[in-house]
């Protein structure tokens, strides 16, 4: 049991890293990785939303869509759940914790169109995970996402002072850097 948990969480963080191996959530990965501080904020918001969205979509799939035999509505149901969840979380945080809202608030609307969130919701039900496995998978995946984001931001802060060919400045060098990070992460394949 303990072993399964480790395999699932560590696997999602390192081996099947959402960004570097599965290519989910590339937009924020490139967009919000200019400063380490922003990257940490975005990462925290993603962890929060991904866990909530995984649980909500899992419950919807197995207690609403499956009994009604309308599995073909999965995509539409999940994206609506995520969109309303993000809106709800935004409002709650705004009321309950204005300080937290100040630091996380601007990242929340971006999360609706983060394919990592819809991606994990779909992966959970496709892989037939139990509710516990779903939560663990969400924790692993979102922590892995945050780690990759913060790592890239750290590198990009230093890149700003580097002498880069003008044509490669901005997005191109970011992708090339991510490629090198992905090569490093390949070392984790086969670990679990």
């Amino acid at each position: 049991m303990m072993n399964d948990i480790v395999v699932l969480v560590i696997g999602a963080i390192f081996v099947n890293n959402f960004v570097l191996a599965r290519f989910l959530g590339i937009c924020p990965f490139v967009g919000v990785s200019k400063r380490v501080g922003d990257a940490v904020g975005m990462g925290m918001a993603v962890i929060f939303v991904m866990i909530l969205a995984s649980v909500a979509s899992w419950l919807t799939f197995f207690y609403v869509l499956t009994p009604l035999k309308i599995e073909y509505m999965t995509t539409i149901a999940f994206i609506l759940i995520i969109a309303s969840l993000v809106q709800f979380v935004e409002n709650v945080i705004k009321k309950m914790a204005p300080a937290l809202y100040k630091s996380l608030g601007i990242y929340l609307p971006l999360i609706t169109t983060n394919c990592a969130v819809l991606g994990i919701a779909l992966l959970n039900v496709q892989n037939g995970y139990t509710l516990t496995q779903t939560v663990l998978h969400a924790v692993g995946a979102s922590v892995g996402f945050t780690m990759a984001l913060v790592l890239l931001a750290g590198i990009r802060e230093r890149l700003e002072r580097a002498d880069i060919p003008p044509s490669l400045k901005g997005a191109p060098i970011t992708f090339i850097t991510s490629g090198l990070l992905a090569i490093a992460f390949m070392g984790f394949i086969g670990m679990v």
Partner: protein
Amino acid sequence: MKSAFEIMKIGAFLMAVCALASFGLALTNRATAPLISEQKRIAREMAMKEVLPGAVEFEDIELSDGRLAFNGKNSSGETIGMATIVSPKGYGGVIETMVGMDVDFKVTGIKILNMQETPGLGAKAGDPAFSGQFKGKTGEQLYLSDKDVKKGEIDAITASTITSKAVTDGVREAVEAMKNAE
């Protein structure tokens, strides 16, 4: 009271959009569902014919351990062998493999249905150079050829021992399972 009316109008609009969307999807689903299950059946049958050459008709059987298997019959209706699916754990995840064997439990062919092995390395498990080796082997021969284990007759893929071992163990597991089910 204008705002309450506005909200109701917007709500009704949203409901209408969702209702139309559901209706459209229900129609599409109705049109495609039989085609999709037919495609799945064809894919499964093609895999079964590939691992069990000569068989034209298949019947599902459930083994005592809950494993799903198939009996394959030739054109004159005799059972010439059976097939089952195993999912050994490889390097990048499970390697879903269909294994066919004749009535003497000699492997007649294997086909990898799903895998996430590294392209160019472990993914070569699907190439005939590797998967073709299993044909005609019996349970005792289904080990990797190795200096220490003399009986093994399967040559591993270069630089992909984990994948090779997983597939070989999986095929052996399939043969053993069918033997035990007799």
